């Protein structure tokens, strides 16, 4: 067994143990901690699969932001656990569920192993057309040029999710500040970290966005790091969430998708199709859209995690 195989095997076993822990652990908080570790280790599998762009996204989202979201929810729902513990389903049904899950997993393994060889791939097509945008990162090419419509709609999904979260706030707080106010010990560790990390984190976030044109990275990964830095400052009480009625926040929220839409419609009007970039300006337009999208992604993710309006705008 080579070192690489041993490493892969160890990684896979560790990830599977953590998945088991997350599903089977007794308490919701313990399960969530397992889930965060699972997300981080999953990023290593993505690196082993040669998908560094995905690894960056998985580490930032799976290990970072969804961890914050889930740990916060688990802490607020702690009182609900004792109530629901009585609802565990009967052993017979659990057995059926286990059998169904095992059959699903077996069917998946078999179908992956039976995939056709040589595998169909679009990599040569992506390589052939890379010259059109002059970007060096093939994943950014796919996201921003070849399949730009997906990426545009994904930003709309983010915005729709935020509309959904905001609409869950009580009527009397509409337009008010988002989520509970965080009160922490001003001499504590969290405040210290929230003062120490963001200056470096903001630089890293912008770098990851900028380098994404030619190397692994991109607008989404960079924006996620910026969102994490903002959330850290909000949770340490160094800054407050904006009111949902804030015009400035709403402007930033729609800036990214609007820039995308305007460029897309421009392609329809001046060029051949929706989102068809003129060849001479392709790189400039793509970087322009990404530049507009980074603050939108950072603010949308930050506000998604902050929660619905929960206080009046003055408090």
């Amino acid at each position: 067994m080579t070192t690489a195989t041993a490493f892969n095997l160890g990684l896979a076993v560790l990830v599977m143990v953590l998945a088991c822990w997350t599903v089977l652990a007794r308490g919701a908080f313990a399960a969530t901690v397992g889930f965060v570790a699972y997300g981080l280790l999953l990023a290593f599998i993505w690196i082993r699969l040669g998908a560094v762009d995905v690894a960056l996204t998985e580490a930032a989202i799976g290990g970072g932001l969804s961890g914050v979201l889930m740990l916060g929810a688990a802490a607020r729902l702690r009182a609900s656990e004792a109530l629901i513990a009585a609802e565990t389903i009967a052993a017979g049904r659990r057995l059926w569920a286990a059998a169904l899950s095992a059959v699903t997993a077996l069917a998946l393994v078999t179908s992956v192993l039976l995939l056709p060889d040589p595998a169909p791939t679009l990599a040569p097509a992506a390589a052939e057309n890379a010259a059109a945008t002059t970007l060096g990162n093939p994943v950014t090419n796919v996201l921003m040029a070849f399949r730009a419509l997906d990426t545009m709609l994904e930003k709309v999904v983010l915005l729709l999710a935020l509309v959904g979260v905001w609409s869950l706030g009580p009527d009397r707080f509409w337009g008010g500040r988002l989520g509970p106010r965080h009160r922490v010990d001003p001499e504590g560790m969290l405040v210290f970290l929230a003062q120490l990390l963001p200056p470096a984190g903001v630089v890293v976030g912008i770098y990851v966005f900028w380098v994404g044109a030619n190397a692994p990275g991109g607008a989404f990964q960079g924006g996620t790091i910026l969102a994490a830095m903002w959330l850290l400052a909000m949770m340490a009480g160094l800054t407050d969430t904006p009111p949902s009625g804030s015009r400035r926040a709403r402007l930033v929220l729609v800036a990214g998708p609007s820039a995308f839409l305007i460029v897309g419609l421009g392609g329809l009007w001046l060029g051949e199709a929706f989102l068809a970039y003129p060849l001479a300006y392709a790189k400039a337009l793509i970087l322009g859209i990404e530049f507009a999208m980074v603050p939108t992604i950072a603010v949308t993710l930050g506000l998604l995690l902050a929660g619905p309006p929960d206080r009046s705008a003055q408090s």
Partner: protein
Amino acid sequence: MSAMIIFAICAAAAVGLGLFGVITNPHPLRKILSFNILGSGVFLIFGIVARRGAAAGFGGDPVPQALVITGIVVAISATALAVALLLRLFEATGSVTLRADASADTSEDRAAP
């Protein structure tokens, strides 16, 4: 054993475990966690398909990789919405049960004033 087979088993196990958790865990937060594990297994299968399609000097087919990135973004959006719904349910009814009879009782209690 090649890396593909190891990670294929890992991906399938994640889907199976996630499915089991979604069905058997009574707590909605645990169902959301399990659903995310199920989703990550599906993404990993995309990763394996991408890796198999390595060609033209790329370490993998960039199209499935880009699809997974979009998928992760949509998954976190849906998760955040699900968690917000759950917290609101808990705030409004004091319980997080998904049983139809139980939630009907509490909503009648609340509607009284």
